[in-house]
């Protein structure tokens, strides 16, 4: 059981900028690189919407800067011994932006709306455990029980979804409601206006149940072009922007900016089709892995702002194994790579500098999604690495939807050799949908990975609620996966963010974001 502790947090930035006075009427200028789809937490799926939604709504729990869950709309919560009953004690001092009281009805309404098949949401299956729905029991206005049909560790995070106001939406068709463009939440900021293609404006919620937000207004400018966005940061038209690693040098010299770096909850990888006439052979996959110098990739593509990856979780997460020695690493060694290819029956054609088997060249194609600059650069470098060991690699840059059409198709085998992608990681380590063989061909195990031992462990990992025990299970999963080379894990890129020095009250730099507690963020008065 956890209880929310408010205030008294050590805040580095606050200390650094203690001399300057927060401006109670200040405005924070942020940018979005695309128009949010709609401001409804259960319908939207894009990052731009969630960025705004996070300021306007609250969930039952939230993720703090240590990536730990803590109660948000609740004063506390507990989970039963067997991991099936979640009890939430709700805050009694929460009001919707229109003044109505927040109650357990709202929570119940939100989950029931998600589970209603007419709602255009893709979150529904998070609340169905083994195809059985969770049930919600309102004990009284401020106590709520959620019962899972069986123990399911990842459920807690799903229960953190932002809560919608029942009194506004109960009569509406939620899919087409005006609410989606004019949201009413419980969060620290109230929605003011949304000018399509221009900006979204939020204003401080004076009746916020938490500490009073220090910035009066937040303005999200919509700036699609990356270069334009960076110029806006330099010109102080926006207070904060992500900086590509290659531009870092220039921005480090900018006196108005403070640069923050932290590891993203994300790993980039090359997915290898396991059901492929050449790549089914683990020796070829190992040979490819040995051919690629991950450190060089990090150095060149990320300008050193990142870290080589060897397994499918992030060092920032609790699930990352303490002991790395048990994880197989097929590190950079063109020698080993060539030996493996010979062992797999390939012969080197000296004229063409390529390996061949039965007269056929060892030629593969890699897909990379369009618009992903880092990815496009990576595959061009990987192409050269593979050329060095005698593997021919063709590059195809694919428009995102077209790529998804191929890898999400229900054919078996799927029509790709390799694909360069990345996974953003959730806080919960459950990765059943990525690695379990039942998730192929329909599901996110699109490479067709199949390891029965891993299958069993994945299910065990979902049902185990005890954290140390779970951690051991996942260590074993990562070991086995790394050994099989279904992916070539490439790197964990860093997030680099430039923030105008007039902004203070930032959280500790980390995957939870610099503005994890937006209430604490302030801007100083202009001179």
């Amino acid at each position, binding site marked *: 059981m956890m209880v929310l502790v408010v205030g008294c947090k050590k805040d580095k930035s606050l200390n650094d900028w203690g001399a300057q006075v927060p401006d109670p009427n200040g405005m924070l200028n942020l940018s979005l690189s695309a128009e949010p789809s709609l401001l409804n937490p259960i319908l939207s799926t894009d990052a731009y919407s969630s960025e705004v939604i996070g300021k306007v709504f609250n969930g039952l729990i939230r993720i703090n800067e240590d990536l730990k869950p803590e109660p948000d709309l609740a004063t506390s919560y507990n989970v039963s011994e067997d991991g099936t009953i979640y009890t939430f004690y709700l805050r009694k001092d929460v009001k919707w932006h229109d003044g109505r009281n927040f109650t357990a009805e709202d929570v119940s309404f939100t989950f029931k709306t998600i589970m209603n098949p007419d709602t255009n949401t893709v979150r529904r299956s998070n609340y169905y455990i083994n195809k059985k729905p969770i049930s919600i029991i309102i004990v009284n206005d401020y106590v709520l029980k959620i019962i899972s049909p069986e123990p399911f560790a990842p459920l807690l995070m799903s229960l953190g979804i932002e809560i919608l106001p029942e009194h506004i939406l109960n009569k509406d068709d939620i899919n087409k409601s005006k609410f989606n463009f004019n949201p009413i939440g419980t969060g620290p900021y109230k929605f003011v206006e949304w000018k399509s293609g221009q900006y979204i404006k939020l204003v401080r919620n004076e009746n916020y149940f938490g500490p009073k937000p220090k910035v009066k207004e937040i303005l999200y400018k919509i700036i699609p072009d990356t270069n334009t966005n960076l110029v806006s940061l330099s010109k102080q038209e926006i207070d904060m922007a992500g900086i590509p690693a*290659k531009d870092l040098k*220039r921005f480090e010299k900018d006196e108005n900016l403070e640069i923050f770096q932290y590891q993203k909850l994300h790993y980039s990888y090359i997915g290898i089709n396991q059901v492929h006439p050449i790549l089914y052979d683990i020796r070829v996959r190992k040979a490819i892995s040995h051919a690629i110098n991950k450190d060089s990739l990090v150095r*060149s593509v990320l300008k050193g702002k990142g870290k080589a990856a060897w397994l499918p979780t992030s060092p920032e997460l609790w699930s990352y194994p303490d002991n790395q020695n048990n994880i197989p690493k097929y590190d950079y060694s063109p020698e080993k790579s060539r030996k493996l290819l010979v062992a797999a029956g390939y012969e080197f054609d000296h004229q063409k500098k390529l390996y061949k088997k039965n007269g056929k060249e060892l030629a593969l194609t890699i897909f990379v999604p369009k618009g992903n600059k880092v990815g496009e650069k990576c595959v061009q*470098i990987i192409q050269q690495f593979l050329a060095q060991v005698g593997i021919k690699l063709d590059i195809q840059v694919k*428009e995102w939807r077209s790529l998804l059409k191929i890898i999400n198709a229900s054919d078996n085998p799927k029509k790709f050799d390799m694909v360069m992608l990345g996974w953003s990681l959730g806080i919960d380590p459950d990765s059943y949908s990525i690695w379990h063989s039942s998730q192929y061909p329909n599901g996110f195990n699109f490479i067709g990975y199949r390891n029965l031992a891993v299958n069993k462990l994945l299910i065990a990992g979902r049902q185990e609620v005890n954290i140390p025990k779970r951690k051991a299970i996942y260590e074993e999963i990562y070991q086995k996966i790394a050994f099989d080379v279904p992916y070539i894990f490439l790197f964990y890129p860093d997030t680099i963010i430039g923030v105008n020095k007039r902004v203070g009250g930032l959280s500790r730099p980390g995957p939870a974001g610099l503005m994890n507690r937006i209430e604490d963020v302030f801007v100083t008065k202009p001179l």
Partner: protein
Amino acid sequence: MKLAKMSWSFKLSAGFLALIIILAIIIPMFSNLDPNGFDPNCIGEPAAPSIRHIFGTDDLGRDILLRLIYGARVSLTVGLVSVGIMIFVGIFVGTIAGYLGGWVDELIMRFVDVFMAIPTIFLILTIQILLKPSIYNVMFVIGLTSWTGVSRLVRAEILSIKERPFITAAYARGISHLRVLIKHILPHALNPIIVASMLGMGTAILTESVLSYLGLGIQPPHASWGNMLENSLSFMIDAPWMAIAPGVLISLTVLSLNFLGDFLRSGLNPRESK
């Protein structure tokens, strides 16, 4: 009079284009340098122009001059082939409309009207997503969305020619329709078509660069001027040389094509050349 006065621009343009074409053909024939190759283990920053790399290198350490030369092949081919498609479709549609006349003409021309009323960029983008991105498809798409102007031109020209006495005379001599069309009518429409194709080539090269800007152009690692320019945009401040060379080259090439087209237009129009 105008010929004599403006000929400097004509000479410069033709000379520039000839130089680019010769370089693009010859250099790759005598060199085994790989414009896409680099040592993956030592990639540094983009290098400024120096004696070793006259135009500098890009972010993967590849020589920009070499890539420009190979890119010229791609960009010029895109220009040529897509204009070829444009002219072929344009002549075909325009001829049918102008020659057959009547309701066929009415129907085709109204279709052309509406086709012209849809912003081309939507069509190009949609078709480009539909097809696998490749150099062939880029040419195909550009050609297939730019023919309307030529078809109108050809139609107007045919309408004005087909009633003239010498055509009637040709029929009177018992020459077949197709032959009259090819031998007597089309050559008269040739001049405006040549002009249109010069200008069209310039537009095609620019369109390729716009497609590259949207990530739908020629695919890496292969170089085209458009994708080199696109790639350079994010280095505009730190490595301006990456943007300058391809930008200038595109502009000058298109400029030369426009000049040639304009020169031919005025040269072929007796009124302006007098």
